[in-house]
């Protein structure tokens, strides 16, 4: 599903965030990406939805090589990859329904299909009754649920989550994790960067640890491995 070969990323300021990373993530896997701040986790995640382009090496997602992908093709990649952010990235002037529908409008889906699919994911994240509310009227957990709903409404093969529980309290964080677990159970590959030791240690999925731009540990059913 996701293959990284000798991925090297050096920023203009000289920082090397990825120093020849090789990794393969199979379809349907749930992977935690852990590591101290500044280790290269964010770059690793951002390169997967082509927010960052590797300096050299190949990143292949569902047979698309992101390293050679033309800018004009990036929107098509992002329609195959759902992304969930720590700060939710919702459009503040659109309500819950419109925020989710927006991801379908950009692919020019028909109004009937939009209605159908948005209602399905709203049910999935338990927000049907709040579909007309605006982001600022929702709690952090609810906003993250909207963000998750938006990321899966296109039925992507991969969901990439960049610290999705970073701004949430422990109870809400677990709600979000249960939701991601359910999405994974439907066959969607999940790659999630996190600093949450408890979640990683409890869920026991594959753990990829990154330090100094290198994978220092890749363990199925691993633990967090750092003091959080």
């Amino acid at each position: 599903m996701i293959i990284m070969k000798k991925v090297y990323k050096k920023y203009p300021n000289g920082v090397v965030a990825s120093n020849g990373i090789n990794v393969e993530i199979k379809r349907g896997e749930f992977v935690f990406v852990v590591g101290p701040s500044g280790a290269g986790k964010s770059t690793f995640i951002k390169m997967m939805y082509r927010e960052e382009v590797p300096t050299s090496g190949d990143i292949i997602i569902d047979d698309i090589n992101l390293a050679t992908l033309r800018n004009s093709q990036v929107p098509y990649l992002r329609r195959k990859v759902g992304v969930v952010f720590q700060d939710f990235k919702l459009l503040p002037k659109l309500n819950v329904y419109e925020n989710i529908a927006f991801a379908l409008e950009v692919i020019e889906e028909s109004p009937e299909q939009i209605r159908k699919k948005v209602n399905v994911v709203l049910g999935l994240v338990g927000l049907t009754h709040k579909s007309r509310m605006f982001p600022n009227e929702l709690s952090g957990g609810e906003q993250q649920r909207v963000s998750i709903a938006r990321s899966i409404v296109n039925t992507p093969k991969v969901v990439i989550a960049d610290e999705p529980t970073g701004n949430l309290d422990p109870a809400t964080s677990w709600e979000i994790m249960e939701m991601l677990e359910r999405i994974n159970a439907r066959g969607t590959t999940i790659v999630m960067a996190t600093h949450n030791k408890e979640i990683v240690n409890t869920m026991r999925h594959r753990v990829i640890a990154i330090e100094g731009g290198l994978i220092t540990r890749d363990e199925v059913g691993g633990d967090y491995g750092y003091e959080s």
Partner: protein
Amino acid sequence: MKARTLRRHFKESFKSLGRNRWMTFASASAVTVTLLLVGVFLVIMMNLNQLAESIEQDVEIKVIVDLAADEVAVADLEEKIRKTDGVLDVQFSSNTEELDNMIEGYGDEFGLFKQDNPLRHAFYVKAAEPQQTASVAEKIEAYDYTHEVNYGKGKVEKLFNVLNTGRNIGFVLVIALLLTATFLISNTIRITITARRREIEIMKLVGAKNSFVRIPFLFEGMWLGVLGAILPMVIVTVSYFNLYVLLEPKLQGELFQLLGTTPFIYQLNGLMLFMGVFIGVWGSFMSVRKFLKA
């Protein structure tokens, strides 16, 4: 792009005006203020240009015919003048008509000359282009039986110089005002779009193509231009109609005439609307482009 998507962009641009009502107000106000300035200035410039044109149209060449010319020679001379390059119109005035004019202009004392008219026949010649007056006069001066050619040598050249300089200054001022307006409006739009860069970022993250992000902003720019142009169009139209009704009777028979309200005021409105829309769309295009590149 599907027609459905275009309709969506169209609807979305309207909604967005309402959602960002303060930014809409700021941008449309910038358009209003600058277009009002441009509109008023254009009214003044176009009318001054009209005055300049009527002054130029008044310039004519007086050709005084030699006493030795008989009827045939006078007819020949008229024919020659008429065929001269750059001549628009030739009017013959006999010495009797010349004297009548003089009596009319200076008083009945000149009636004494009716017994023995000392004046000569004359031709009044208009150049097709007022600027050609001097060269046309020079050509006519060379013809047989011309006693004197008079067009206000020196004064006319000076007048034309003043009028041309005035026109050029006006033209430069209009261009400068337009550039300032463009800069001011596109800057305001840029600020309002900068405030919405997060919106653009999110659109791109969920897979929106650049055109999908850009088109609603272009529509929005167009509405801002239209909204901003309405007030200046109304103010300029109402003011000019009133000014025309008020001043036109007083200017009857004067050299300076106001430009007629139609089609002038409609053309001016069309121009202001076009400028508003163009600057709005262009300002949006340039501002969004910056964020789509990033």
